[in-house]
């Protein structure tokens, strides 16, 4: 162990000569070893073992299962569109292989662009690399459609990190959720593609019946080469999209024809277990709820926000039901949780401590309002099929105002007696 430490210490670049390399080294070194820093007065002499790295990595851990499922589901949706291997566990090797092939580039692009910018600014400001991007970088791939063009992704991440975070002073200072900013960039920059149904299923030239598949060396050479040895299923580069396939997402269907239209295409079980097209990480409700429970039990994320957001969505859904003016408003409130990304937004997006309200009471209001606004956007706005991204960014903007009123009441209570 000590030899390793000595070896790693020997690699340390000169701080004056190459500040960027030193920042980079420091980032990786503190990842490997907690530093030998001791407390210095005035102040506490002992410190809690908790630090920001651990906080951030626990969010990433909570996302782990979403990654696994998301990759597999990207492959599953691909083959479902082709009308092949339609059982969820059929041809698992192909589906996983396909999903990994989709996920790795998205993950790499996100991290190279995001971390690159992060490291650059850390070196420029001369401080250690903050761990903020650990979480943003883990979230961004999960909220992207599996067929996202990588150039768009790179631009979105750069936009989010530079304008959303570094412009405000870095980790802990941003007003809006970084991952959602990346998503909103794509949403507004490429509205026709993202709100259509093309990018949600990967590896196809189009979703119309008869469209060809897009396979590369990854599938035909590496995949087929290996799977052939074991006698497993192989990629078929002559496959075409099956007749009658739509590729539409449940929310798109619900907006057009209400719950009836949704259940014509997808069963409730499919939506609950997430074997439907959608962003990579947000479809499988049970594993997201497991992640949410993990975050709540470890107290990494605020249960107040999650609970009140849930409450806000339920109440708004009930109000819509009571009115029932459109088909979408008449969708029974409980079914709203089967469609779209409510739980993912609740567990991982709304609870970002930097952009959420920071007082306990504020968190209740903040979460509740996200639930209300998100449902309004989802159901009443014809242009946007999903509401949570906009609702959270909207309430991010108002979180400081909520806190302001909470603090003001504390202040006036204190000064009143004067």
């Amino acid at each position, binding site marked *: 162990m000590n030899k390793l430490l000595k070896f790693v210490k020997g690699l340390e670049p000169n701080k004056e000569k190459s500040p960027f390399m030193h920042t980079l080294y420091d980032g990786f070194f503190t990842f490997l*070893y907690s530093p030998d820093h001791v407390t210095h007065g*005035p102040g506490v*002499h002992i*410190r809690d*073992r*908790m*630090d920001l790295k651990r906080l951030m990595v626990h969010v990433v851990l909570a996302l782990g299962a979403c990654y696994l499922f998301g990759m597999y589901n990207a492959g599953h949706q691909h083959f479902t569109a082709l009308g092949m291997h339609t059982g969820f566990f059929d041809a698992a090797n192909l589906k996983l292989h396909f999903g990994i092939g989709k996920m790795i580039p998205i993950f790499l692009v996100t991290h190279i662009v995001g971390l690159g910018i992060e490291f650059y600014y850390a070196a420029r400001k001369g401080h250690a690399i903050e761990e*903020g991007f650990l979480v943003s970088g883990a979230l961004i791939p999960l909220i992207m459609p599996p067929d996202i063009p990588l150039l768009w992704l790179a631009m979105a991440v750069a936009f989010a990190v530079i304008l959303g975070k570094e412009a405000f002073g870095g980790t802990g*200072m941003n007003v809006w959720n970084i991952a959602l900013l990346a998503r909103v960039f794509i949403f507004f920059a490429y509205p026709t593609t993202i709100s259509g149904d093309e990018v949600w299923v990967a590896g196809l030239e189009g979703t119309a019946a008869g469209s060809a598949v897009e396979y590369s060396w990854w599938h035909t050479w590496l995949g087929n080469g290996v799977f052939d040895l074991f006698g497993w299923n192989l990629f078929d580069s002559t496959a075409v999209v099956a007749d009658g396939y739509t590729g539409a997402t449940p929310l798109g269907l619900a907006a057009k024809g209400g719950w009836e239209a949704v259940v014509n295409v997808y069963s409730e079980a499919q939506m609950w277990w997430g074997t439907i097209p959608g962003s990579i990480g947000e479809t499988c409700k049970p594993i997201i709820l497991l992640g949410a429970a993990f975050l709540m039990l470890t107290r990494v994320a605020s249960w107040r926000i999650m609970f009140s957001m849930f409450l806000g969505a339920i109440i708004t859904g009930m109000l819509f039901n009571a009115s029932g003016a459109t088909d979408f408003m008449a969708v029974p409130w409980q079914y709203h949780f089967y469609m779209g990304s409510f739980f993912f937004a609740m567990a991982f997006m709304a609870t970002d401590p930097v952009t959420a309200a920071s007082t306990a009471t504020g968190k209740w209001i903040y979460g509740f309002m996200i639930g209300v606004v998100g449902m309004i956007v989802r159901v009443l706005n014809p242009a946007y099929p999903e509401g949570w991204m906009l609702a959270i960014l909207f309430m991010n903007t108002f979180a400081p105002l909520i806190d302001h009123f909470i603090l003001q009441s504390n*202040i006036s209570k204190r000064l009143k007696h004067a």
Partner: protein
Amino acid sequence: MKYRIITVVLAIAMLLQSEALLAQSSNSGMSGGILWLFIIFMLIAISLLIGDNMVRAQAKLGGIDVARDDTSFFPGMNALLGKSRPAHIKDGSYTLLTKGHDIKLEGEADQVIRPIEVNTFGVCPTDYRGIAPIPKMVVELGQEVSAGDPLFFNKKTPDIQYVAPVSGEIAEIKRGAKRAIVEVVILADKQQTYRVLPSIDINTADRNDILNFLKGSGFWPSINQRPFDVVADPEITPRDIFISTFDTAPLAADLNFIVDKKHTLFQAGLDALSKLTDGDVHLGLDARGNLPHAAFTNAKGVKKHWFKGKHPAGNVGIQIHHISPIKPGDVVWTLTVEDVLLLGELVANHRFHAEQIVAITGNGIEQRNYVRTMRGAKISDLLKNQSVDAHENRIIAGDVLSGRQVSMDGFLPNGENQLTVIPEGRNYEMFGWLLPAIDRPTLSRTYPNFLFSDLAYEVDTNTHGEPRAFVQTGQYEAMMPASIYPQHLMKAIMIQDFEKMEGLGLLELSEEDVALCEFTCTSKQPLQQILREGLDLMREQG
């Protein structure tokens, strides 16, 4: 019971009204019986709550104690959550504090007094907040002094004397940067002599006489005032005086043990204090377990307030917040139990007998027990016969959260009753931030420590991570059993927003009150330092 009946009647009346409303609207062709059941249930609950609150408000107006449970229809949150007072508490108020945390550490002091010979004592002007760096010296090198003889005074307040805790010879007057006096060192006599003090009868003397007596006798610098937690300003009569009789900090000295057999001295001190304020002398008592020492529970002429809760429930600042908060313009005094005992000696025995019982604690030292010495004892003398490598260990005057690092050559600050020794933690730890080990204290649920609540930890001074920007929220609030938002207060101090600082309760706090927040801070922010900067800023502004 009659209040409960009124509540039910009110609730039924409101419910009938809402039922009528419902009947009108129920023809609109709605389905979903569950929804209606839910709404009706909510209406019942809301009417009950409103009715209940109306009764309580009325009871409050009528001067009835609403904290007692029989004014409410509901069984009372207090009764449900076990918040009602323990049976053994007979008089005084009772407060249950649910926030905070007890950090359990290895290295508690055994309750025996080990005889120890301390030869060298020191008085450090820098220990007293608010004193100018170069006080006026009244003694010279080599001069013989008695215990209680003046050593120096602050030029702004020449009548407040800073005195020798022991009799002996002035061995050194140590100067630091810019000729500031940092230490006045006294070599103690074998046989203590005391300066003859004017005898004063507390029962007949008026406030001014007592004030002058305290200033001249050397007791005054032991009186702390809030806001700012500085040496009290003699021009201001305090609204109230607060004394906490228990310390919840890690490994803190047991004040029941320290006050033992000093019953009368403690009462004499309290009697003198009650002459100094127009308000009350408030005693904060420990309601956590066994009954505290009779010197505390049987104290006369004071108001008693029982507190049950985890650290920082024993901090006087937190107690003041719940007894009678410091509002803008208020000045209160705070004293420690030892200060009251010293005052008792002064008024009862007319001598400056600065005895100090010190708990030697911490996992960095072998023999952990109590020692009897005088104020200002030299650290190396206190740790005599113990092998303590000063480089590999951190010696702290006070507790690990808000104590001050001292060297072997240093002296115990005035009134400090604890000395903690813990190892320095200058070591790298592979994946230290990642592994789920339970060998270090933490409040985070990401470690399994919370499952082993009785575990006592060996600690060192490692920071376990680097400073980062404020990210996590709600952490500090959970460690602050008071209606204060520490994170927002810290931010207000950092941007020097005076109005917000005051409004968010800066004046109610001292460093020790935010020490636990600082310990638990995920971002490793120096909260105590920030708080003191804020207090200094406010004090300069006047």
